[in-house]
């Protein structure tokens, strides 16, 4: 009886403190984003006049109009990005977890040597130019692979995944081995289903990387039909800035463009879908998922 009471009190204190702390952090994170959303719907010049506000001082859709001035281009760009994110995430997850599985196996003698072989590439890099030459040599100009390959493997993800695998009891693999299962079968049939929280985490990271990246597109894609969303936005923003610089140099009047609010509209457009999808991924962050799968 007494024990129960104590536990309830400690849980109460913990809950109160927890909600206050998380609530404060959430507000700190939410407000700048709301300011961004509001800013994106504000008239560019009133933004300078009144500063950032939670409710737009002068409502305006200029920034979005600029982005959606060619809806079919945006639709195509979305298409490219969505296919890229899905393919990249699935392939990446498969390859990364397979690699991690091997590296986590304690009975694999060379696991540290290979880990080092991979990790070394995060410390030293030959720079952009030789990498570019390799990519070009492989025929990556205007090739979807140019968008896919750069993030297929990430050493950080491999090592994080390896850490997750080590928390799965070794006995599970060993007993399967006695039943005659091969290494790949153990990995695919046993380890993968047991690692849903870990896979969701790494999957989320890979997906975000693909979602956010425009750099390879800038280097390798010149065909407008193949451009991913982020690169398209980046280009619109860039050409707008360029137009303003040119206007200042030459004095030729250009329509005033909402540079400041455009950046914010870009943020909103890029963040929106992720925030809609994220709660579905959170579903997999549930305690006991791993071991539950083992029992079942």
């Amino acid at each position, binding site marked *: 009886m007494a024990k129960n009471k*104590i536990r309830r009190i*400690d849980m109460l204190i913990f809950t109160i403190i927890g909600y206050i702390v998380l609530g404060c952090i959430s507000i700190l994170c939410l407000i700048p984003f709301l300011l961004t959303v509001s800013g994106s719907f504000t008239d560019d010049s009133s933004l300078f006049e009144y500063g*950032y506000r939670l409710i737009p001082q002068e409502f305006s859709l200029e920034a979005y109009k600029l982005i959606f001035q060619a809806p079919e281009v945006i639709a195509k760009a979305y298409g490219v990005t969505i296919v890229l994110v899905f393919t990249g995430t699935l392939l990446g997850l498969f390859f990364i977890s397979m690699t991690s599985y091997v590296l986590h196996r304690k009975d694999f003698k060379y696991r540290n040597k290979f880990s080092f072989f991979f990790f070394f590439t995060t410390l030293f890099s030959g*720079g952009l130019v030789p990498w570019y030459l390799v990519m070009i040599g492989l025929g990556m100009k205007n090739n979807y692979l140019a968008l896919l390959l750069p993030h297929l493997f990430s050493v950080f993800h491999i090592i*994080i995944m390896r850490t997750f695998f080590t928390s799965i009891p070794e006995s599970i693999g060993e007993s399967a081995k006695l039943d005659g299962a091969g290494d790949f079968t153990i990995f695919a049939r046993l380890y993968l289903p047991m690692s849903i929280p870990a896979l969701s985490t790494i999957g989320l990271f890979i997906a975000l990387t693909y979602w956010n990246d425009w750099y390879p597109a800038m280097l390798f894609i010149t065909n407008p039909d193949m451009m991913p969303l982020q690169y398209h936005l980046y280009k619109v923003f860039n050409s707008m800035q360029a137009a303003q610089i040119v206007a200042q140099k030459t004095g030729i009047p250009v329509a005033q463009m909402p540079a400041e609010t455009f950046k914010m509209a870009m943020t909103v457009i890029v963040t929106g879908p992720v925030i809609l999808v994220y709660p579905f991924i959170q579903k997999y962050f549930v305690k006991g998922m791993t071991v539950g799968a083992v029992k079942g």
Partner: protein
Amino acid sequence: MHRTNSLLTELKKNKMLFLMLIPAVLYFIIFSYLPMGGIIVAFKYFEFDKGIFGSPWVGFKNFAFFFQSGQAWLLTKNTILYNLAFIAAGMAVQVGVAILFSELKGRHIKKMMQSSLLLPYFISWVVVGSFVFGIFNYEFGSLNTLLKGWGMSPVDVYGNPSIWFFIIVGFYLWKLVGYGSIVYLAAIMGINPELYESADLDGANIFQKIRHITLPLLKTTIIIMILLQVGGILRGNFDMFYQLVGNNSLLFNQTDVIDTFVFRALNQQGLDLGMPAAVGLYQSAVGFIIIVSLNALIKKINPDYALF
């Protein structure tokens, strides 16, 4: 003779495991090790028509601008201190947030909070930079408008170098709190719930459970995450520093890191691959030495925690 034999036996024994490694090994050979030869440009005077390999050697000349600037030590120190603060504070906040999320009840509000925490990750530093100036600028910033409204005297944040360390670390934490805590949250989800159940039977309270079950079992993940970041300890987060501080040299003693310095020094110069490569090599080499020694140390204590 003995070595090859053991490799052969290992190959035979774990044929499948080797096969499973092939994609990754090939990938890193092609996209990382093959271009890595380009490092030598750090010792060359780059000429376009001759390419990296044909360009003439210049020895250590490309390193001179950095090490003769008289600021190499300050920059190295600043970069390391900032990164240490990022690693330590980032870890503490992210682990804390992950534990709170894992223990609290209330699904919907938790999901909403978790989503909010991820939002800063998407706001680029350029936009953050505009916000920061909007808040802190002396004449019309929201902070001073507030202070004046309360009848207090305005503060000159940009004229006060000592607080910038905290501002920068603060924004770093803010930006990555949601993203970074995901790994720890997933790790907590992997902990066997039976451990908690038996602790409950023993009458442990929530704080004891966190201290004696969650934290010890998170140790591997925490150490690995720290090690992963230590390799880049000499690399600055250029965008963040540049957008938050701008060219405000009054703050440089506190805020200048290697990457911002290199940008300032090379910005006006012609396109040269050599000098940036030289500084990059310095950053890599120091990171390499630190991580290899740290890894060796950890291996001695407990091989399970080592990176390689």
